[in-house]
C-alpha cells in the first residue's frame, strides 16, 4: 500500500502532462538546432503572453462551473480604450488605468447577468464576445493608433533580463498568485465547492453569486491587462486586436485537466498544459508547419491525452475478462477444473 501511494501521483493528469511536455521538448531538440537559442526560449512565452495570462484566470472561471467567451473581446476593448485615450492626449498610465476599469466593468456585467439573472454564462459571454468587440469598433472605427511612448512599447518588447521582457515576469508572478489562491486559500476552496455542487455550497453559507461575480470581474481585469500587454507588444492597436483568442485559451485550460462541468483541475495541470501547447507550437513553427496543421495537431493531442489513459484502463478491465473467457474455453475442452475458476482473481 505504501508503494501504491508513492506512485499514485503517476496516474494523475499532471504527470501525464509532464510526460507529454518532456516528449515535446525532446522532439523539439531533435527537430531544430535553434530551439535552445535564448531568443527562441523567450519567444516561446513572449509571443503568447496575452493568452497565457488569460489562461490563468480562465482556469478559475471554468473550475467555478462557468465559461467566459468574451475574454478576447475584452482584451481588444481594453487595448482600444488605452489607445483611444492616448490618441486623445491622455498619458499612457491614465489610459491604462481606464482600460483596467473597463475590463472590470465588462466582467461585472458578465457576472451580474449570469450569476444574478440566471442566464447561462455561455450566452451572456457570447453576447459579450460580440458586444464588447462592437464597443471597440465604435471607439476606433477603422483607425489604428500607435506611436506609443518608447518606454511603454519597450516594456512589451525588450528584454529586462536577457531577452525576457517584463511581461513574462508579470505572468510568473500571477501564476504563483493564482496557484496559491486556487490551491491554498479559502476563496479557492469556495471556487471548487461551487463548481462541483452549487446548491451544497450555498447551503454551507457560501454566497455563490458573489464568488462568481468576483471571478468574472477578475477575468475582465486580467483580460484587460493582457490587452494592454498586447498593445505594448505590437506597438499599435486596431479594433480587431486579439480577435479569436478565446478558443485557444479554452483549449489550453481543458488540456490542463479542467473539467468543463467545473469542480476539477489544478493550476499545476494548467501550467503544464500551457507549456506543452506553447512548446509544441514553437517546435512546429520552427519546422514550418502551417497554422491549420498546428491546430489539428493540438486537437489530436487534446483527444489522445484523454483517450490513451482511458484505453489503458479499459484494457486493464477487459483483458482479465478476455483471459477468463479464453481460460473457460480451454477448460471446457481440456482438464476439468472447479467451476469457481471462471472468474479470475485480479
Amino acid at each position, binding site marked *: 500500500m505504501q508503494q501504491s501511494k508513492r506512485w499514485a501521483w503517476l496516474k494523475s493528469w499532471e504527470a501525464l502532462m509532464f510526460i507529454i511536455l518532456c516528449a515535446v521538448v525532446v522532439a523539439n531538440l531533435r527537430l531544430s538546432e535553434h530551439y535552445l537559442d535564448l531568443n527562441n526560449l523567450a519567444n516561446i512565452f513572449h509571443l503568447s503572453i496575452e493568452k497565457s495570462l488569460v489562461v490563468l484566470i480562465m482556469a478559475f472561471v471554468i473550475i467555478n462551473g462557468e465559461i467566459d467567451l468574451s475574454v478576447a473581446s475584452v482584451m481588444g476593448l481594453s487595448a482600444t480604450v488605452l489607445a483611444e485615450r492616448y490618441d486623445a492626449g491622455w498619458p499612457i498610465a491614465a489610459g491604462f488605468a481606464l482600460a483596467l476599469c473597463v475590463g472590470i466593468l465588462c466582467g461585472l456585467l458578465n457576472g451580474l447577468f449570469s450569476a444574478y439573472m440566471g442566464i447561462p454564462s455561455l450566452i451572456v459571454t457570447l453576447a459579450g464576445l460580440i458586444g464588447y468587440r462592437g464597443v471597440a469598433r465604435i471607439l476606433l472605427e477603422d483607425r489604428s493608433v500607435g506611436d506609443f511612448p518608447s518606454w511603454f512599447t519597450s516594456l512589451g518588447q525588450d528584454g529586462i533580463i536577457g531577452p525576457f521582457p517584463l511581461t513574462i515576469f508579470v505572468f510568473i508572478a500571477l501564476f504563483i498568485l493564482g496557484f496559491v489562491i486556487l490551491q491554498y486559500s479559502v476563496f479557492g*476552496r469556495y471556487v471548487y465547492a461551487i463548481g*462541483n455542487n452549487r446548491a451544497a455550497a450555498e*447551503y454551507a453559507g457560501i454566497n455563490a453569486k458573489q464568488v462568481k461575480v468576483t471571478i468574472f470581474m477578475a477575468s475582465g481585469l486580467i483580460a484587460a491587462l493582457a490587452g494592454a500587454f498586447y498593445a505594448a507588444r505590437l506597438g499599435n492597436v486596431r479594433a480587431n486586436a486579439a480577435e479569436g483568442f478565446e478558443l485557444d485559451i479554452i483549449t489550453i485550460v481543458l488540456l490542463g485537466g479542467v473539467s468543463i462541468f467545473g469542480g476539477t483541475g489544478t493550476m499545476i495541470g494548467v501550467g503544464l498544459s500551457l507549456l506543452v501547447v506553447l512548446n509544441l507550437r514553437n517546435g512546429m513553427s520552427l519546422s514550418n508547419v502551417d497554422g491549420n496543421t498546428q491546430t489539428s495537431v493540438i486537437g489530436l493531442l487534446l483527444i489522445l491525452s484523454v483517450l490513451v489513459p482511458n484505453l489503458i484502463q479499459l484494457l486493464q478491465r477487459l483483458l482479465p475478462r478476455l483471459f477468463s473467457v479464453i481460460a473457460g474455453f480451454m477448460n471446457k475442452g481440456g482438464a476439468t477444473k472447479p467451476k*469457481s475458476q471462471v472468474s479470475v482473481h*485480479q
Partner: protein
Amino acid sequence: MTADPLLEIRNVSKQFGATKALSSVSLSLYPGEVHALLGENGAGKSTLIKIMTGIYQPDSGEILLQGRPISLHNSAQAQKHGIAAIYQEPLVFPDLNIAENIFISHQRRNPLVRWGKLYRDAEKVLAQLGVALDVRALARGLPLAAQQTVEIAKAISMDVRLLIMDEPTASLSIHEVKQLFGLVHNLRKVGVAILFISHRLDEVFEIADRVTVFRDGQFISTAPVTEVTPEQAIRDMVGRELGDIFSKEPSPRGDVVLSVKDLSREPRFHNINFELHAGEVLGLAGLVGAGRTDVALALFGIAPAHHGHITYLGKEVHLHSPKQATHMGIVYVPEDRRQHGLVLPMSLMANISLPSVKNYRNQFGMVQRGKEVTTAEQYRQQLSIRTSSLAMPAGKLSGGNQQKVVLSKWLNTKPRLLILDEPTRGIDVGAKQEVHRLINQLAQQGMAILMISSDLPEVLAMSDWILVMREGQQMGIFDRHEATQEIIMAAAVGQALNNEAERAVVHA
C-alpha cells in the same frame, strides 16, 4: 422455501483501492422470501447490491441464477434476468415527469410513447403505494421522500423475480412504511424474492423471513428471523456488546433563542407558532410531505416565509439567504445529502470544514491543512466514520458514512441554533446512539436544536417538545412526558383535530 434458490452469491469479493468492501461473501435468496441484510455503515451492503445489478463487477466469486452462473455487465442485463433494485440514494431524472421516471427503464416498451396510457399506468402504480403525486409534474425539486416513492414505484412496476431494496424506508414515516410493507407482502405471495436493507431494526423484524449480517465486508451469519433477537443481530453487526441504550438527560433551559409567530409560506405551510429555548430540542414530527422541511428552509433563509414573524435572540429578523443565517449562527443539516449536503468529489476533510473554513485561515489567509486534519480526525473517531483516508472523496463513502460527514460538517460550525433534517437517515444503530448522545451534549452546552425526523422513536427519545404537522398545518405541540407514539400518529394523520380534548397544546 423448499424450492431451489433463485439467486446465489458465492464467495464474492470486491476491492476499491485500499478498501476491501467485500471479502468472499455468500448469500442465497429464495422465491417468496423477504431476506434482510444487516450491517454497520460501510459493511458492504450497497456494494453487494450493485454487484447483483451489474453496476460493479466482482473481483472474484460468482453469481448463480437458478443454479446457472451469470455475468452481469450493466443493469440492463440484470433487468433482463428479472432483477430490479431500489438504490439507497434515489436518483430520479429531474427533467422527466414522474410518469416517465417510473417507466423509463422498461425495456420492452413500445418504440413509440403513448402518453395517455403512460399517465394512466403511472397513476395506477402510485395508487398501489397509496400516494397521490401528479404524474405529469417534472421530478425536479421533488422532496427526497417523494423521490424515494418514485423509485419504489419504478421498481414494482417492473416484472421482477428479485426485488432489492436498499434502505427504502430511510426517509419515510410509519404511515408510508405500512403501505410499502403491504406491497411487499403481496409480492412475496406471488413468489418474488426480496432483499431488504434497513437500519431500523424494528422494521426488519416485522417483515423479514431471514436475516443475514455482514461486518467489515465479511459474512457473519444467516438465520431465520424467529431464531434471532435484535440484541443478537446488533452484536453480530458491531462485533461487541453495544452499551446501554442511550437515554436523554434533561438540560438546563436557557433563554428563548427562537420564537416563531404565524409563520406562513403558501401553499406549503401556514401559521406555525413555537418558541425554542437554549438547551432544548424541539422535535418536528409528521408524515412525509407535511411541510416540515419547508419550515426549516424558511428558517434557514432558502425559501423565505411570506408572512409571520421570526424573533431570533430577542430581535426580529428577516432571513433571506443561507449566508445570512449562517452568519447569525443558524445552521441547517439538509435531508438530501447528495444534492445539498455534500460536495461529492471533494475530500471528506474539505467537506467537513467547508462551512467553517474561514476559521482555519492563518495570518496570510491560507487554509491550514493541519488544523483541518485534526478536526476531521476527531469527528472520524467520534462518529466512527469508516474510511481508509481523510482525503477520500465524500462520494465514495457508503451512504451512512456520508451522512456522518454531513453531520460533522454542521456540528463543527458551533451554531446557536441547529436545525436537523432527518439527521440519522441511513445511520447504523451504533452510530445513531452516538449522534443522539452528541445532540444531547450540544443541548446541554446551551444550543437550541430543531430536529425533523420521520423516525418516531427517535423523535420521542430526543425531544423536549414535539411539534406535529399535517399538510402544512401545525397540529399541536406536545410535552415529551405526555407524548406517545399513538398521540403523535393520531395528530399526524389528522384525527386529533376533531377531538379538542385530546389536543395537548402546551406552548402558547
